[in-house]
């Protein structure tokens, strides 16, 4: 088995009094694609956002590439509480890429600059090298022809593929996908999912929060079903999606089968 890239232990997250994540344990090995499914409000997105510290976890230990992030300072609900310094988080984020539901490309930069930006500003790469790496990654998602366009000229699906190239260019250890097809027109969903499948086939390590169960079934190495801030059921796509054991999982999946054809 390949090495563990990311290990999460007893992750808790509160928003005020609202206990959104209630102790999540998981690990991801190099080259794995893990899909997380569950209804809205189950905590999938929050979980993802805690991994790259877009949200600061209330408690729990994150180990990235064998290194624990932060300084342990106390305990909450039996889980360790950590204190994080901003520069440490900045460093972690260069190793953990993220693609968002709303793409969030930088509208004032051309496509190529969007992909190069992190290379030049964060990794201090020289410009020529950054340009060639950016172009290689744009090529990978099939959008090299759009390199000199502004994002506003691209379709949603194209913008999302640029966002994937932007995350890829940083050569992170793992990429987080946060419902990346949820705000796309139906006809462009496919191209984004295909790009993601290609990445998965190339052994990119990925955690994918998605409602595209077909994608999860065909691409995931492991599927996690989240319910009320806990991992309710986990296993291979066949186990979780075809033969779910827990009632909650069955109930969730039933909602999708009504219109199956």
């Amino acid at each position, binding site marked *: 088995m390949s090495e563990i890239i990311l290990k999460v232990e007893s992750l808790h997250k509160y928003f005020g009094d609202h206990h959104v994540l209630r102790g999540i344990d998981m690990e991801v090995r190099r080259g794995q694609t893990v899909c997380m499914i569950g209804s809205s409000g189950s905590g999938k997105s929050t979980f993802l956002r805690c991994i790259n510290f*877009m949200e600061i976890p209330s408690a729990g230990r994150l180990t990235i590439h064998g290194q624990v992030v932060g300084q342990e300072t106390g305990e909450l609900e039996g889980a360790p509480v950590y204190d994080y310094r901003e520069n440490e988080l900045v460093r972690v984020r260069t190793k953990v890429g993220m693609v*968002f539901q709303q793409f*969030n490309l*930088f509208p*004032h930069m051309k496509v190529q600059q969007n992909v190069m930006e*992190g290379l030049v500003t964060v990794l201090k790469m020289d410009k020529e090298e950054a340009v060639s790496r950016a172009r290689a990654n744009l090529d990978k998602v099939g959008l090299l022809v759009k390199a000199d366009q502004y994002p506003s000229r691209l379709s949603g699906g194209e913008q999302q593929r640029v966002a994937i190239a932007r995350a890829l260019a940083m050569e992170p250890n793992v990429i987080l996908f946060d419902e990346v097809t949820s705000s796309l027109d139906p006809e462009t969903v496919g191209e984004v999912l295909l790009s993601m499948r290609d990445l998965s086939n190339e052994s990119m390590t990925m955690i994918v929060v998605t409602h595209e169960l077909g994608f999860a079934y065909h691409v995931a190495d492991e599927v996690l079903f989240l319910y009320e801030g806990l991992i309710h059921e986990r296993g291979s796509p066949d186990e979780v999606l075809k033969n779910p054991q827990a009632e909650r999982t069955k109930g969730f999946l039933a909602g999708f089968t009504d219109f199956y054809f």
Partner: protein
Amino acid sequence: MDEFRWDFSVVFEYQANLYRGLGVTFELSIIIILASMVGGIIIGAGRYSKNRLFNWPATAYIELFRNTPVLIQIVWFYYAFPVLIGIQMEGFYAALIGIGLNMIAYSADIVRGGIQSIEKGQWEAAKAIGMNYFSVMRRVILPQALRRMIPPFTSRTVEAVKATSLASTIAVAELLYEGQVLANTVYRPFELYTAIAVLYFFATYPLVLFSYWLERRLAIDSEMRL
């Protein structure tokens, strides 16, 4: 009853006085506009900051100057402030400080509003590729926010040029004051005030045109509306 006859010859006869006044108006305006750009960014950053050490003083400053009449600020800096610090203050400087501090307060709020108008997703996307706070601001937020600040900042700039006319109340020899003096000397107030209005218009309208040009120039994409 005699019919009133417009006679603009006095305006041309004394045009040197009006231009001299216009020169002082320009001087005040330019210094105030430059100060409000620099000061606006500094105070605006403080206003935007979550750190109370910066946020509270910036907020207090902005609200104090926005919620009191600029005329009172000018008069206060002319009469009261010198008493407080024990030195005489020329009218020109009192007007500069009064109008300048007022304009900085408005600019600061424009800066804060501009930064705040940028979607949260832009922050997140930039942070997600490992940018620190400073880089996010410099590379992603400010370039977009500055474009959005141009229209409101232009309005304030035009307001500031016109507000310099208030300096006439403390005998600063700017355009309005020179005109008033002439009007009282040659008894041609209608013609002189008309001429002054025209001169103010020609002083401010180019600013508006410049801002339109700048907006077009900085538009991300010619077909994209800001």
